[in-house]
């Protein structure tokens, strides 16, 4: 094995907002990404994805940061490892904190991703950061109106059946809603990515 070992993770702490999500929190610095992900020129169905992050007491967490990484409407990731290339102007990356919404929601305005590969269901890849989380955790958000695709998805299928609902956002108009439960009976499935 190599002498180069992974640098340990540490918590994002309570004060990330002016550094990582400055524009959302009205600090003067620019931000590399926000909750608004899809400009007018981006092809695809406009959707909103929102939810809360709940602690072990079921209380909404006001200082979490959520990042999502997604494919475009044709299932392509804007990254060199995806040989298909992505449509211009859509990075597929969003970042938002839960501290500016009165109900502590994260809100992403984006497009619905296509399936990235045959047999995969459309989904958002999610990272959760917060004070009190020394190492970030990964989860996914699937869509309730993709029942057939969800049933065939290899990642969802590997999740115990009684926990799959923690990964599937409910559609209501153009909005998908899903709360992330850090603990409790309904604890969200987090992946060992």
């Amino acid at each position, binding site marked *: 094995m190599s002498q180069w070992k992974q640098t340990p993770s*540490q918590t994002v702490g309570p004060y*990330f907002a*002016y*550094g990582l999500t400055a524009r959302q929190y009205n600090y003067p610095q620019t931000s590399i990404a926000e909750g608004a992900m899809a400009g007018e020129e981006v092809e695809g169905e406009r959707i909103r994805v929102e939810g809360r992050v709940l602690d072990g007491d079921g209380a909404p967490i006001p200082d979490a940061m959520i990042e999502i990484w997604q494919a475009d409407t044709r299932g392509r990731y804007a*990254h060199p490892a995806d040989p298909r290339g992505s449509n211009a102007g859509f990075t597929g990356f969003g970042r938002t904190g839960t501290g500016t919404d009165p109900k502590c929601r994260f809100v992403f305005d984006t497009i619905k991703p296509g399936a*990235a590969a045959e047999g995969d269901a459309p989904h958002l890849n999610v990272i959760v950061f917060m004070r009190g*989380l*020394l190492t970030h955790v990964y989860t996914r958000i699937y869509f309730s109106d993709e029942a057939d695709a969800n049933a065939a998805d290899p990642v969802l299928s*590997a999740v115990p059946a009684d926990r799959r609902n923690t990964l599937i956002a409910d559609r209501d108009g153009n909005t998908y809603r899903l709360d992330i439960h850090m603990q409790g009976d309904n604890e*969200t499935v987090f992946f060992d990515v």
Partner: protein
Amino acid sequence: MADGNSITPRDWAAHPPLIHPDYKSTVKRGPTKPLVPIRHSLSELTGPVYGHESLAPLDNDLTKNGAKNGEALGERIVVTGRVLDELGRPQPNALIEIWQANAAGRYVHENDRHDAPLDPNFFGGGRAVTDAEGRYRFYTIKPGAYPWPNHANAWRPNHIHLSLFGPAFASRLVTQMYFPGDPLLALDPIFLGTPEGARNRLVSDFSLDVTEEGFALGYVFDIVLRGPRETPMEAGR
């Protein structure tokens, strides 16, 4: 087994556990159920791509990028190092975002209630992108220690927060850089939450070579991210 379509796993001998009771906020916020294994696909092997076009000229100079009518107060420092993968290969074009307290131990953040002065000429946020050799460089002010409510008379050691994108979503890292010889390290549940054998990787080295004569002390902090297992990442699967 070598696998061009995968990235090295998270090394749990390096990273803190999800629940570390000495750090009280972890108790109600850390997941309790085992993480579910996942087979890496493009979803994990790709990630946001940021490069030099993401930077403004003073982004890596925190001594100047928040200046309004004078110089930032405190001890000027240089923080530099390389971003590497686990085979020691430099990671070029890696975006690093940092944020930190000012010299008095106070954050610009509106929730920071520590009774220490804000510096009108210091903001505390910056960015850099690594060069072809994986190297980055920041100019900043040495951050002060600050109290926090975890336990009686609790103080965070001097630290700089860092956020990095490596080649993939799976190589994402958020961490904190500490300073050598800080007596608060031995008392800090966040630092001590890190497995013992890995803690020293979070502490920068003082370097006289990096120190700029008459101007700023130099610290070196190399960062190792997860990367492709053996060969460079191949397309598709």
